[in-house]
């Protein structure tokens, strides 16, 4: 037992990871076992040696790297055969390259794999040593941007602004499981053997192969799912026994109970049921469904309060909006925006409801 402890503490000491208490504990152990001293000394010596390094290899690699920067027309308006030191762009070119990168990134997938974070399964966290070692893929979109992702099973997910989709390495082995924060439109590849499950904070959705939209922004009052085709089975957190089957053109709305209402009076007024199923309304003109229009790069809203619309605008345009008047907050709007700038959008709204606005860098204040 003390041996195991010794090796853990000793390797921590060598890696400069040991705390003061751990160092003391180690001293204690070593003191009890003077016969380890020789091994300890040698290991310390071994540890302090730097591995042999081949500088030529690094220099060669650097030249190849510069060559690649050039070949990839990274600095495309550079004449050929410039000396190495001139391959570097000046400030202006840097900006152009930055733009190119942004475009390239958008074309590539437009998504940022923000890195992989350790997955601590909540169930296992209760002191169990066998913590599940997940390998999490995380795809997230920034505010003001969207992206389309293809999952390993061929399913396609469009992620709306400010959203995050994660799945682990087990994905597709027995079942296909993903977690979503924010909004996504799922076109799930058919596979009856491997159900596709989407976890959100308020609901879990189980599907076999279908297309539907899920809107689960943590800051929103509700979590919604709208079914376009096929069928899905939804279970609501805290109500594990109830399974709700949605049919095409239905939308399920679940109140996010753990969202604390900012004002007490709202709680009294709010008579909406915890869970409701509504019919999706198709536009009489082109029979489109508002809930999925964002996939086509259209921001569609029907009879929405200015307050809710402001939240959509914040995500769509990546800007902070404050409405400084409670009557304006409740004003209702319908409409569609696609390529409009935020100012054009606001001016369009002003046609039906008079208000004024002020833009300071990344914030808009709306007032009477």
């Amino acid at each position, binding site marked *: 037992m003390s*041996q*195991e402890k010794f*090796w*853990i503490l*000793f*390797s*921590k000491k*060598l*890696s*400069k*990871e040991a705390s003061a208490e751990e160092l003391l504990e180690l001293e204690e152990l070593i003191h009890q076992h003077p*016969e*380890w001293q*020789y*091994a*300890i*000394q*040698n*290991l310390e*010596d*071994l*540890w302090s*040696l730097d*591995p*042999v*390094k081949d*500088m030529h*290899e*690094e*220099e060669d*690699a*650097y030249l*190849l*790297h510069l060559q*690649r*920067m050039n070949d*990839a027309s990274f600095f495309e308006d550079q004449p050929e055969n410039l000396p190495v*030191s001139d391959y*570097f762009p*000046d*400030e202006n070119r*840097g900006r152009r*390259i930055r733009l190119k*990168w942004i475009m390239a990134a958008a074309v590539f997938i437009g998504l940022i*794999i923000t*890195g*992989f*974070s*350790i*997955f*601590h399964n909540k169930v296992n966290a209760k002191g169990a*040593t066998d*913590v599940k*070692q*997940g*390998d*999490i*893929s995380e795809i997230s979109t920034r505010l003001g941007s969207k992206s389309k992702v293809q999952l*390993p099973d061929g399913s396609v997910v469009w992620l709306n602004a400010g959203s995050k989709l994660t799945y682990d*390495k087990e994905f597709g082995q027995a079942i296909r499981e993903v977690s979503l924060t924010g909004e996504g439109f799922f076109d799930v590849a058919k596979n009856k053997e491997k159900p596709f499950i989407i976890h959100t904070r308020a609901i879990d959705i189980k599907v076999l192969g279908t297309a539907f939209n899920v809107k689960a922004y943590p800051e929103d009052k509700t979590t919604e799912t709208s079914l376009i085709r096929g069928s899905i089975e939804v279970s609501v957190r805290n109500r594990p026994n109830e399974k709700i089957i949605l049919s095409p053109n239905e939308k399920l709305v679940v109140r996010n109970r753990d969202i604390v209402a900012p004002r007490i009076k709202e709680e009294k007024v709010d008579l909406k049921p915890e869970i409701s199923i509504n019919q999706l309304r198709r536009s009489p003109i082109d029979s489109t469904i508002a809930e999925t229009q964002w996939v086509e790069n259209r921001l569609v809203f029907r009879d929405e309060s200015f307050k809710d619309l402001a939240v959509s605008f914040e995500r769509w345009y990546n800007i902070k909006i404050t409405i400084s008047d409670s009557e304006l907050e409740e004003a209702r709007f319908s409409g569609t925006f696609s390529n409009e700038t935020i100012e054009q959008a606001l001016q369009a709204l002003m046609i039906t409801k008079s208000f004024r606005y002020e833009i300071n860098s990344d914030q808009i204040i709306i007032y009477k």
Partner: protein
Amino acid sequence: MPENNKIKLLLSEIALYNNQASYKELFILMHSRLSAFAYSILKSKYDAEEVVSDVFIKIWEKRAKLVDIESPVFYLFAAVKNQSINKLASQKKQRQIASEHWVAQLNSVYFDPEKLMMTAEMIRHISQVINTLPPKCRMVFKLIKEDGLKYREAAELLQISVKTVEAQMAIALRRIGKCMHLDVSGQASTQSVKK
């Protein structure tokens, strides 16, 4: 940690003055570790070089934003990891993405015997032990001992717990230590006989 400070300095020189010499220095400083790490994921020298080069292109491109990184060594490793995984995904090699499939090539087996108070026999024995460490153990040992990452950082890269890193390091050290330990117990017994 002093290395992180050095890299922070280089990154700020790159960001503030577009300093190409600093950029080159950073490349030379990190290249072998990063390309070895990429290789352990991709198992292709060519792809590994390309990934490191791509990461360094991004470093130049995003240089203005890279001045405030807490742990740049870890940042570079994480960037190489993500880039490598993207590459595997684009090559439709999803199966290789999980970290248990990563295979580290260790450098520390090529140490200079003259600097150590050990017999050639012992050194050969140690090299053999290091070379036959289990894959996960080697990967952890490589990241901590050779690449200078913190336990927490290695754990994050490999998607394992810090406790697992601790355990894997202990296994590696114990195995190497055993080569010496056996020797020492032999010596101790002969000495005691003499007395």
